[in-house]
């Protein structure tokens, strides 16, 4: 299922990312589609908010280099995703999507959360 984010309005936010000496204009909308298609949402939630199954990815994601290194080389519960399963472009788009996710609202502005002890 695709996320229907009510805030982000994730239509084609282009985020330029420099990689390996060439410029690639990462596409946040394509990144959102890839985030769902590759199942990132299953552990991290449709907005990368994190869950009991995986940590928060957004808002304020890791810098791309650290993000990429983790995805490619992790050795923990999350398996590494190699370029054979997730291309560099797709990874950049996913990162662009995570960067496009707006800041978390201040809990003080949410009455339902403020009543919690």
């Amino acid at each position: 299922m695709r996320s229907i984010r009510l805030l982000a309005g994730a239509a084609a936010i282009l985020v330029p990312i420099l990689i390996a000496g060439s410029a690639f204009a990462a596409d946040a909308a394509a990144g959102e589609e890839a985030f769902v298609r590759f199942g990132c949402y299953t552990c991290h939630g449709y907005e990368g908010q994190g869950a009991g199954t995986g940590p928060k990815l957004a808002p304020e994601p890791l810098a791309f280099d650290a993000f990429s290194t983790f995805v490619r080389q992790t050795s923990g519960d999350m398996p590494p995703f190699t370029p054979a399963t997730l291309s560099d472009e797709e990874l950049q788009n996913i990162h662009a999507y995570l960067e496009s996710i707006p800041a978390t609202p201040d809990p003080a502005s949410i009455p339902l959360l403020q009543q919690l002890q």
Partner: protein
Amino acid sequence: MSGADQSKIKRRQFLAGAAAAPAVAAVALNGSPARAQAASVPAVPNAAGEVNPPGEATPLPEGYTCGSDHMVDVLKALDIEYIASNPASTFRSLQESIINYGGNSKPEFLTALHEDSAVHYGIGYARITGKPMAALVHGVVGLQHATMAIYNAFADQTPVYVIAGNSISEWTRRPGAESAHASIDQAQMVRDFVKWDEQPPSLRDFSNAAARCYQAAVTGSPGPTLLVADADHQEEAVHPEHMEQLHVPRMGRITKVGADSGVVQEIADMLCNAENPVIVVDRFGTSMESVPLLVELAEALQAPVIDTRGRMNFPNKHPLNHTEIAGPTLRAADLVLALEARDLFGMVNNLADTVERNAVSRLRPQTRVVRLGTTTLSQRSNYGASQRYAAADIEISASAEATLPYLTEAVKRGAKASFRTRGERLRMATSGLAEATRVEAARAWEASPISTARLAAELWDQIKNDEYTIATECQFQSYWPNRLWTMNHYYNYLGTSGGFGVGYNAPSAVGAALANRALGRLTIGIVGDGDYMMQPGVIWTAAHHQIPILMIIHNNRGYHQETMHIQRMAARHNRGIDRAHIGTAINEPNIDYAAVAKGMGVFAEGPVSNPVDLGPALRRALDVVRRGEPALVDVVTQPR
């Protein structure tokens, strides 16, 4: 009554004694009165016993009673309040006795649409009451349906009293289905995961067998038991002069057994002399007494408590509750007291889901471990609900609840001034948790599908003034209810299934609601869509018996856990990771859970996918529940 009729009655007559031989000979030729009639109906192989009407029964002679009436007397003596069942021929006499002779009260017959749910009702009920209710299942096939629920009860140390019908004697079985539903040793299929089973050889033996099954279910490490009630014994005609020989058992008070005073003092000394003792607790919270007992110990010792949420063990907002910072707390420990811990290895180790399966200890090498609890008493050779063997420095197989009053007193006697300093430090460590949790909950607040944090917060807004139970496993909602709500009592959260068999949550929640109905408590179940579809008929049982429960479908439209597994395997195998939905998604078409529930006569809302619609939908559903009826809300959610 003619002499011929009387001789037929004798075939099922209690305590036939020396007359048994000629009676048996008569059976070989003639069959029983009821069954002889049935045999005259043309039999359809493999189905006759179920699809054809039973034969016309010869009424009992004046003054006689039937064996199943005696069985009802026994169930009443055992104080069995409810008996959940899907009706079946192997216990037709017992069912009739329950509803007529017994007045359908203690036990009251609950109509279950599947034997699995009949047993699961008993799990939820026992989690609230601490005592078993009964499930009555058909010979062979009914017990086969019930096995997963029995296993869940075993794996999670919950007392459930299962009674199975049977037609042991081949001389009296009707043709077709009744023969297929007979077994010489029916309990064999569940013997590895019941605490006790009996198939009494005569009606006279029924009561003692029934009492032993009850006693085994509730003593030591609680668990399921199986009593096989033979159809011939149920339908046996009992001569008035023989009734007094049918003994009805008396059940005395059953107490929990604590550790001996010597080892209690030894543990207290270890706790008092430790620099950083940590209490880890799994399945401790089972009564009104248990949580206050643990609070008293933790405060006397000024020690942090890590609740692994096998039950509601410790108040979640207590400053000594270190569940949310378990990692650093365990790393700092020099002594761990593990209470009612089934999987000790899993408590003190992290095992990564990698090819190597490397385990990393959460403890320092010199940290000592004491395990106190009954979990070791339920070990079976063929089934285990734990990982690798882990040795405690001291292993005490005794009730933690029964031991704690004495342990706490001993700790108080050995208390040191340094405890206070430690307590202040521990309180500081948790002082910012509430705000951090609110920040975390605010993420994806406006998202659709709805975040599980938002779901929990919207619910809490409307139940915060109620005495409530959330009767379902909350790990699937990332434990948001446990993190956001206020939980102070054992009944606020009932923990996990133990056996992790899918299909546990909805029926066990209805069972908890059944128990809570008499206590005036609100019961909530948040059930995954895949889990719910194993037993969607439970909401009909709730409606039929007016069991109030708010059933929320956590609808992530898939077997989400399995989606993650397939994705992980695909990545490990270096193949495409975009096909994990095959075989795991529950969509195309989406299931309309509200429509399904409405079709069973239940108030229902949904699918709710916009978070602003959620609060009003929950309010309308809770209005129905507070009137004493079930209601269902289908919420389209984030995965976890």
